[in-house]
């Protein structure tokens, strides 16, 4: 079975910091980071009015579909995507092969600026995810759920 992603406090703070900085540096409205399987990892900027769970799931679906298309034409993947709207635009970038960095921006920013800032932030994020992967692969990194009991699980469904 493939092991899932585990996020620890320390790395989460680093990731949130990178996303916050990217939001400022790129003049973005919202920045969010999504696992390729559709789980939201972090968000920054004016995300409170957005349905980030749906955004995360659709981002993953979109990246997966584009990845499928890429393979059909002999590419490994499309690491960067840009979708231009009337007012708001969306930039997606695959980081470290595993997560997707999404930037939503309007006329206050530009594609060039976003691309530039995303490149730098992407490199920083990739390093954090490398550390995370190593941490997870360390022998003895027991499943945090090893201690839950059958009763705990049953209680979840008791009502």
């Amino acid at each position: 079975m493939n092991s899932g992603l585990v996020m620890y406090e320390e790395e989460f703070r680093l990731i949130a910091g990178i996303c916050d900085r990217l939001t400022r540096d790129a003049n973005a409205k919202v920045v969010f980071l999504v696992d390729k399987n559709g789980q939201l990892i972090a968000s920054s900027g004016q995300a409170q009015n957005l349905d980030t769970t749906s955004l995360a799931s659709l981002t993953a679906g979109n990246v997966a579909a584009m990845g499928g298309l890429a393979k059909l034409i002999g590419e490994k993947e499309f690491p960067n995507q840009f979708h231009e709207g009337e007012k708001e635009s969306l930039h997606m970038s695959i980081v470290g092969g595993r997560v997707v960095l999404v930037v939503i921006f309007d006329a206050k920013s530009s594609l060039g600026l976003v691309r530039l800032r995303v490149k730098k932030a992407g490199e920083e994020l990739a390093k954090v995810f490398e550390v995370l992967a190593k941490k997870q692969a360390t022998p003895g990194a027991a499943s945090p759920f090893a201690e839950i009991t059958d009763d705990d699980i049953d209680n979840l469904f008791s009502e």
Partner: protein
Amino acid sequence: MSFINYSSREINCKIVYYGPGLCGKTTNLQYVYAKTNPDAKGKMISLATETERTLFFDFLPLSLGEIRGFKTRFHLYTVPGQVFYDASRKLILKGVDGVVFVADSQIERMEANLESVENLRVNLGEQGYDLAKIPYVVQYNKRDLPNIATVEELHRLINPRNVPEFQAVAPTGVGVFDTLKAVAKLVLTELKKGS
């Protein structure tokens, strides 16, 4: 593939509803959505054609409550059932933690059921999963229709692994939550074992 977040104390798991076209996968999700407390659910997304056939997937995020201080969240997905959407089905299985196979109980759909189970087995295999090991439950849907196979026959054909199985009438909710609870429980039990 579960996502355990120590920072927000959350655990997220992905469940996929699989099965032949028109077997009731989307109807299962619609019933769950309709009957779940607004606090415990997010928006349901359906990427469907104009005739309401699933084109890519349906998505429904659910919160089940807490285990030892961790919020448990389940992301429910359906796949498009029609045979020619196979490329999309493969994508949706990525990172799956548990599978519900929704079978259409009508005798004339038996071949479609078998074809879909085999397709599930192959597509899971391509992602590195084994249908014989993954948390898996089977639902025999449309039990209210006249021309249906017996549960014994369905069991023999579709459920040789003898996983938990449920009879259902998805539009009225019969068996819908039992199926969901069973697969969620299997997923959490698997997580407890550690991956």
